[in-house]
């Protein structure tokens, strides 16, 4: 018995060691750093152990802006992406022609580099030559400075991210839809149940676990948004920092400004938010099941 469990640990060891070194240790270290005032990364010196870094970032307007932006981003991107993905997944699953082709097309964003997509969307959003403004002009809407004005920078980022995160959601929803027994649909058809009712009573509950999984993963990823900002605004955080996010803030504090303590404090705050929301979500979905 003892021997057997030893063997198990041995198999787990490589993964555990990697997680310990690259995940757990940095986590603890960031936590410690966040309490060190004026920490110097090179010689390890600091002024004292206190809450100065936390006080500093909460007094920093850039951080508050980054936090609000990230909040708005999560609230829009995650539900919108799931809703749209659900509709598309159901359509894709309904035995249409060229199903395989469409599935591939919708999955493409997932396997394409964010930077490449960002450049393409940069052109779609371009105020002078952009596709989107061209489209809007047909409806008599005046050209919108998507990427160059403070008001539209965050909405642009949200639209871009919804589109991008849909690929993954569609994939798992499609997989889920295929597990729902055809009998249920046949029975509904016999009863001539209206379509929307079939959708709400059979389809949605059938892929419930997938939806909740997509929700959790989507939210965690949305809180960590960085690549999308970098790609869309060419390495910047939007005009006048209007599309700043928490991870962008952390990166900037750490690498550009050498404020290691403040960067760590912001990282800890982000960690706590994600942890808290995940716990809430777990208890909520746990109750349902």
């Amino acid at each position: 018995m003892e021997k057997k469990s030893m063997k198990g640990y041995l198999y787990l060891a490589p993964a555990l060691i990697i997680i310990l070194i690259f995940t757990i240790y940095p986590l603890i270290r960031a936590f410690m750093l966040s309490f060190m005032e004026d920490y110097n990364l090179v010689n390890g010196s600091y002024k004292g152990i206190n809450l100065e870094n936390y006080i500093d970032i909460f007094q920093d307007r850039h951080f508050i802006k980054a936090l609000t932006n990230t909040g708005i981003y999560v609230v829009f991107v995650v539900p919108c992406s799931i809703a749209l993905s659900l509709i598309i997944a159901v359509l894709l699953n309904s035995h249409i022609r060229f199903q395989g082709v469409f599935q591939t097309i919708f999955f493409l964003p997932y396997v394409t580099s964010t930077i490449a997509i960002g450049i393409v969307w940069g052109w779609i959003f371009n105020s002078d030559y952009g596709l989107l403004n061209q489209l809007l002009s047909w409806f008599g809407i005046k050209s919108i400075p998507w990427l160059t004005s403070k008001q539209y920078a965050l909405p642009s980022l949200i639209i871009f991210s919804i589109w991008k995160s849909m690929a993954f959601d569609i994939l798992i929803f499609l997989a889920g839809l295929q597990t729902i027994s055809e009998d249920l649909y046949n029975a509904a058809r016999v009863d001539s149940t209206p379509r929307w009712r079939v959708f709400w009573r059979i389809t949605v509950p059938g892929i419930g676990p997938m939806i909740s999984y997509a929700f959790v993963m989507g939210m965690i990823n949305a809180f960590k948004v960085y690549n999308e900002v970098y790609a869309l605004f060419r390495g910047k955080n939007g005009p006048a920092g209007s599309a700043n996010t928490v991870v962008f803030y952390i990166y900037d504090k750490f690498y550009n400004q050498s404020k290691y303590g403040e960067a760590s404090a912001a990282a800890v705050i982000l960690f706590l938010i994600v942890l808290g929301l995940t716990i809430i979500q777990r208890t909520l979905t746990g109750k349902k099941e």
Partner: protein
Amino acid sequence: MSFRKTGAAILALVMAASLPVAAFAEEEKTIEPTEVTFWHGMSNTQEQVLTELTDRFNEENEYGITVKLVNQGNYGDLSTKLTASAVADELPDLAQAYNNWLTAYTDKIVPLDEFVENDFDDYEDLVEGYRAECEQLGFIGALPFNKSTYVYFYNKTMFDELGLEAPKTWEDMLAVGEKFMEEKEMPAFGVDDLAGFLEASLAQNECEYASDEGALFDNEAGLETLEYIMGLYNNGYARLIGEDDYFSSVISTQRIGGYIGSSTGVSYITADDFELGVAPLPTNKKAAANQAGTNIVMFAQDENQQAATWEYMKYLTSTEATTEWAMKTGYLPVRVSAFESDEYQSFMADDITATAAYSQVDAFFPAAMFEASNAVRTSVNTMFEEVVLDELEPEDALAEFVQIINEECDVE
């Protein structure tokens, strides 16, 4: 017995032989053959020229020093890797760097004061502004290497068409902007480095920028400067970079009359359908021009390694090497004697960028450096975009800049 005698004889001989050698070493240094590692961020032509110069040094130096060039990517990568290697205590012998990258580990920089004093060819010959930058840490912490300055690039064809001359003063600048707006409905002005532009404009108005004490321009001269800047932007005479990457591409596609950018940026301008003009920065109460580009900083620990690195640093900053470097890359020479050499003068006669850059050489100033200078730079860049997008009045823009700088400096 005889063996011992022979031994003693040999010993005596060795001692006798080593005496004059030791005395000789007092005057002429000896450097053991060694390898010097140089981390740089140069690419394309610049890297090729650096390699050429280095190969020549490796072949020709009398000590058997081999300099190994290591390309660490762009400046951002180089800066990050230097910080990481400082943490691991594995810094290279020599690296390209800006002063404000080094604030976290200034104690690892080898002060060059003694080297300069004992074994350097005419330190005063280095351009004054560059020397000031290299001494910003309180000691000579670097030697200038790939230096440049900001100049005003403009579309000369359009200027001629509108009957305009290159702007010499702030007033000219505003007049040029107005004319462009009226006749072409196009801005005549943009800047790649917003924080640098604010700093230079303040200097042109004889006003200080910032220090550990926070913002130093909350005064009449500061307000005048902001009136000038907001006058350019709020009237549409100037624009932000927006969706473009650099103004070099905006001017190449003839969507702007001119812009302020690094003199090395000229290689990114494609002036196929128009004639490019280059002018020194406009002046107000006095001339002031940002200098840019990195310096070379020594981290070598061991004495022999330091001596070897120093040989290479001397070589790179020598009149010959810096002249060749400047002519082949578009950077500026670091020595006055190089600027004045026949070789460079004849090169400059055909090179409008070098001419404009050289004409303001006495007005060069290094970016202010203080504890929070990096954070101030980031915040001022963001705030600059904000005051322009919000079309603030000069007084309000001034107040915003002062506040954000003071916040970064922890000054109430």
